[in-house]
């Protein structure tokens, strides 16, 4: 008699989120299986890898990670195109330059830049504000309005500022990143609130990604549990895909900045761990790690 391995089936299915429009679009989520359990059922979409671009000339990036982009860091559109040439599935723009503690660029300037990138780039775009609750309302609202219909993935929104940004995101046809501080109960609460303004197919969860040695296991646990609650227990408020914005967390660590090889390991190990935990978008800085992670996702490692 032939042995047949028992297979689990689950009641829940993640929502499928489309980022970008037309032929530029990528889809994430949609699966009714646990992370990488391709043998259990339909992995509607596999995890995608984004490379990071900023509007601040890679200020603060160590030379060995900025290296592949050295000649384009002051031109975010060219930088974004380079990311795609180097194998990224999509680009993640961080509007670092809008930070009131730093360059404090005005919202209109940031919005014009994002519009320029979406116009010239043949790929979907994730846009992160600087993380200042108040400034992000101005900046992300302006971005949403300027890029109406481009279906960007815009965030982060947090419990202090989600209402205004979600309104602009909904009105202008984008997706939103719901960010909470590594806490599954707060994560669900923000999802529940956002679901009053947006359908679940327009929401991506950012539970915060900590780097290896700096609390990665907390991020891992929250992502893993989010996935279990959504897929295994069928909790409708927890069925959105997850973004792991980890590259910047890894490359700011002293050991990663001091030594290229250590940095590469730091980013790749953190990325593979969070992939296993359930991330649907990995945001990285180094193109070699982008290639490595794509191999891992395809099961070629």
């Amino acid at each position, binding site marked *: 008699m032939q042995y047949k391995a028992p297979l689990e089936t689950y009641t829940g299915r993640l929502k499928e989120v489309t980022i970008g429009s037309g032929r530029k679009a990528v889809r994430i989520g949609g699966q009714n299986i646990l992370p990488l359990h391709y043998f259990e059922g339909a992995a509607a979409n596999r995890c995608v890898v984004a490379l990071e671009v900023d509007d601040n000339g890679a200020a603060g990036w160590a030379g060995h990670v900025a290296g592949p982009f050295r000649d384009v860091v002051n031109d975010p559109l060219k930088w974004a195109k380079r990311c795609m040439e180097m194998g990224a599935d999509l680009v993640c723009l961080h509007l670092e330059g809008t930070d009131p503690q730093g360059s404090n660029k005005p919202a209109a300037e940031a919005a014009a830049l994002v519009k320029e990138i979406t116009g010239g780039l043949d790929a979907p775009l994730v846009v992160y504000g600087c993380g200042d609750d108040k400034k992000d309302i101005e900046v992300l609202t302006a971005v949403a309005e300027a890029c109406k219909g481009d279906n960007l993935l815009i965030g982060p929104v947090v419990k202090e500022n989600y209402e205004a940004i979600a309104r602009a995101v909904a009105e202008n046809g984008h997706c939103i990143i719901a960010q909470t501080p590594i806490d*599954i*109960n*707060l*994560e*669900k*609460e923000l999802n*529940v*609130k956002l*679901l*009053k303004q947006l359908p679940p197919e327009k929401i991506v969860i950012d539970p915060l990604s900590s780097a290896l040695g700096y609390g990665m296991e907390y991020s891992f646990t929250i992502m893993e549990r989010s996935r279990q*609650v959504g897929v295994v*227990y069928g*909790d*409708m*408020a*927890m069925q959105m895909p997850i973004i792991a914005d980890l590259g910047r967390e890894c490359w700011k660590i002293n050991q990663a900045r001091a030594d290229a090889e250590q940095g590469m390991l730091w980013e790749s190990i953190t990325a593979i761990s969070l992939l296993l935990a359930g991330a649907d978008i990995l945001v990285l800085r180094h193109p070699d790690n982008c290639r490595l992670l794509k191999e891992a996702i395809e099961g070629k490692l």
Partner: protein
Amino acid sequence: MILIGENIHIISKVVSEAVRNRDAAAIQALATAQAQAGADYLDLNLGPARRDPEEVGSWLVNTVQEVTDLPISLDTMNPAAMEAGLALCKTRPILNSASGKAESKELMMPLAVKYNTQVIISVITDLGCPPDVDARVESIMETVAYANGLGISNEDIFVDPIILPVSADQKQVREALEFVRILADLLPGVRSVVGLSNVSNGTPAHLRGILNRTYMVMLEKYGLYSAIADVLDPELVGLNRGGIKDIRELIHGVMEGEQVETSGLPEKARDYVKTARVLMGDALYSHAWLES
């Protein structure tokens, strides 16, 4: 279910100021209000009572006894304050509380013998709060055996499984529930008691009541004898007296795993069903649990 009024608690600003200023009227107002609301006992929680423990313990007990005959549950971790208060109680009080901690066995339990009180014994040990039902059982068997050895009979013991906030550790809500369910078989004669409001600690204030009330109904179904609770919540007291029968039945339905249909229910009933699902661990808790 026996209700022990929780509202004279040192953590409340009104109470801590009244105790500090020896403002008898403020304390007596709270005592009277709870007595009128239907409390069976009054819990007097002094916390650690670091300053003048004997004087504070006696003052508080005397102050309360001036306006009510209700028996007292005296609640402090300071043995000196405890002893001073117990010595003055006119009706047989409850010592709240002893535990499996070495210090408690040594300093608190003997006071229950000396003053012939009833005593609340919690599952806590020097290792902390046991993480699951089995560990709670192990701890309480040992601690109750120790108390029996001192001459405290099971009939004078209230066992406290320790309720933890649903917002902090959702799984513990169910563990405590299961413990209450098996307690009568485990230790015949003992009664059970919980610090009910702790289940909603950390939850926004306006949402605490429904968590407390729902959990009370759930615990009662599994045989809970008494609760230290917010007796100034009239809906809680009403539910305890058996009112709102359909709500009790809905909560029991969720506990028995029924697929309770909520679409036709009034909002209030639906909220109780949602709350019961969260407390049973069927749905992940968030502060917005009533909104989804």
